[in-house]
């Protein structure tokens, strides 16, 4: 047995990892305090908090995307649909029914979870790219339904939510969700349920024959990821105070989740977190420095990175859970 792989070494390793997670979280939790002081505000102001909130939301979204796509191998190209459902649940309940924001959060998550189970039952018997395309279609259909269902959703012109500008609140909500989700996914990944998810990705017929109720496992995982994404959608809608079909059901959002996951390391728990942070600030930097060409540059950089290190940053530093995204499609279209 390799000494580095002995059970005790694995324990030590996770102990160190806990610190790696705790330190940045502690720093992030204290940051808003800086805005209270004049000296501190030079470093962190409400606009920085807003950026960080967006980044933390991306962390959660990418983690959710990776949970379903990276672990079970069901690559969801329409995941932003659940973000949209959460956003519209909050928008509709607050403007039409006068609900308080916090009461709408649970509904947003529940609507997304139920939708995931219903859609998943129809699409999750499809393999590889066929599932991905079905989800892309579902996503586009949901956007058009929202656009057409004007009495409920406000249609194309969208709807305005009661404005509430409290950046530290949204910041802390996003931080709390990102941390909780990361911890939860880390726990699930190491549980037998997580092993079942990876088993489904690696060989679904084999897993099923060996007594695993694959449909139940993948539907629960899908519903959970969708609920968490719906929750982000709810928060985003209230923070943004305005929603319409195109900004909420934006395919760029799914692409962002996928890019962050792959950049960090698909199939790992840390990957989407690291990837989101890098992707967010890379984008910020390119936007500020190269306004005309920032999208082209971003695209080129990401293509180069994925080609050079398909297993992402986590794969590069030796995490064996990191997988090459090309594997997910290659195996399933063959044969």
């Amino acid at each position, binding site marked *: *047995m390799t000494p580095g*792989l002995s059970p005790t070494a694995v324990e030590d390793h996770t102990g160190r990892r806990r610190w790696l997670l705790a330190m940045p979280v502690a720093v992030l939790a204290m940051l808003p305090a800086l805005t209270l002081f004049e000296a501190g505000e030079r470093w962190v102001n409400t606009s920085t908090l807003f950026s960080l909130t967006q980044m933390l939301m991306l962390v959660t979204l990418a983690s959710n995307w990776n949970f379903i796509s990276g672990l079970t191998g069901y690559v969801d190209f329409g995941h932003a649909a659940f973000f949209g459902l959460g956003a519209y649940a909050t928008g509709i309940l607050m403007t039409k029914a006068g609900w308080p924001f916090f009461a709408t959060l649970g509904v947003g998550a529940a609507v997304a979870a139920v939708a995931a189970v219903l859609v998943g039952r129809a699409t999750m018997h499809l393999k590889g790219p066929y599932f991905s395309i079905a989800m892309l279609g579902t996503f586009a259909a949901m956007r058009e339904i929202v656009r057409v269902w004007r009495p409920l959703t406000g249609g194309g012109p969208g709807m305005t939510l009661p404005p509430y500008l409290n950046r530290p609140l949204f910041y802390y909500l996003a931080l709390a969700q990102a941390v909780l989700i990361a911890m939860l996914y880390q726990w699930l990944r190491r549980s037998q349920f997580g*092993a*079942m998810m990876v*088993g489904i990705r690696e060989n679904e017929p*084999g*897993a099923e*024959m060996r*007594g695993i109720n694959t449909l139940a496992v993948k539907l629960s995982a899908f519903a959970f990821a969708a609920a968490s994404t719906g929750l982000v959608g709810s928060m985003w809608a209230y923070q943004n105070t305005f929603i319409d079909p195109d900004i909420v059901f934006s395919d760029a959002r799914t692409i962002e989740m996928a890019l962050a996951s792959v950049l960090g390391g698909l199939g790992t728990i840390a990957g989407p977190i690291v990837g989101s942070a890098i992707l967010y600030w890379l984008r910020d930097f390119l936007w500020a420095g190269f306004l005309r060409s920032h999208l082209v540059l971003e695209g080129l950089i990401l293509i180069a990175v994925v080609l050079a290190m398909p297993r992402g940053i986590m794969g590069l530093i030796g995490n*064996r859970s990191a997988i090459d995204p090309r594997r997910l499609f290659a195996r399933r279209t063959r044969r």
Partner: protein
Amino acid sequence: MSTRFGINRSTAPLLVAEGLVKRYGGLTALAGVDLAIRAGELVGLVGPNGSGKTTLFDCLTGMTVLDEGRVSYEGADITRARPHRIGRLGIARTFQRIRVYEAMTTLDNVMLSRAWSDNELPGVLGRPSGETTERATELLALLGIAEQRNELAGSLSWGQQRLLELAMVLMPDPELILLDEATSGVNPGLIHVIKERIHSLNREDRKTILMIEHNVEVIADLCERVIVLDHGVKIADGPVDAVFRDPTVVEAYLGREEIVE
């Protein structure tokens, strides 16, 4: 209490299949196959390529939906049951194309293949028990791949993956084992090991085994009874010596050569 040569078998059929029909478009893969396997038997299933052997396994295990016919296990109808239900009843199988979890360690592959039962939800959210780890480690040692326990299954050689699949099959302690070409593509030294394992599984651990095999020698050495399929029809079923002398069986194999030429 192992009775190595003791013939102390129940004669009640464990697995019964009646009139199995499976069509793929215009092609009839199974054209009304009947079959009964008694507890404790070690039965070979042979036939030329495309004769329907793997399709038969797929139908018995719920991986393919039958067009006609009925399958029962221990008297219970499992014709429409989903594969994980059938697996949980005590039927395990290997696959012609190896189905291990490539990106998982060898040990995790075996641990994930433990017996699962219904309503296990809270337990499933926890780590596997020490017992599971122990049993999986023992099985890897039994099959001689314990040293590879922390290697990713995808990095094992073909033969080692065959052994790993065997360990995965044994993990839930099934009653009936379906082996789909357990020795194909494996080097001669390993074939011997696999043969030994299959033999002692049947004689010592009293597992009922139905095995698809291309290597006629392996069948002759291990099995008492053999079933021959040709073009989805069962053309022979009986003691090995008699079946391999049967003119219909010989012709079925010669027919394959004609196609080659």
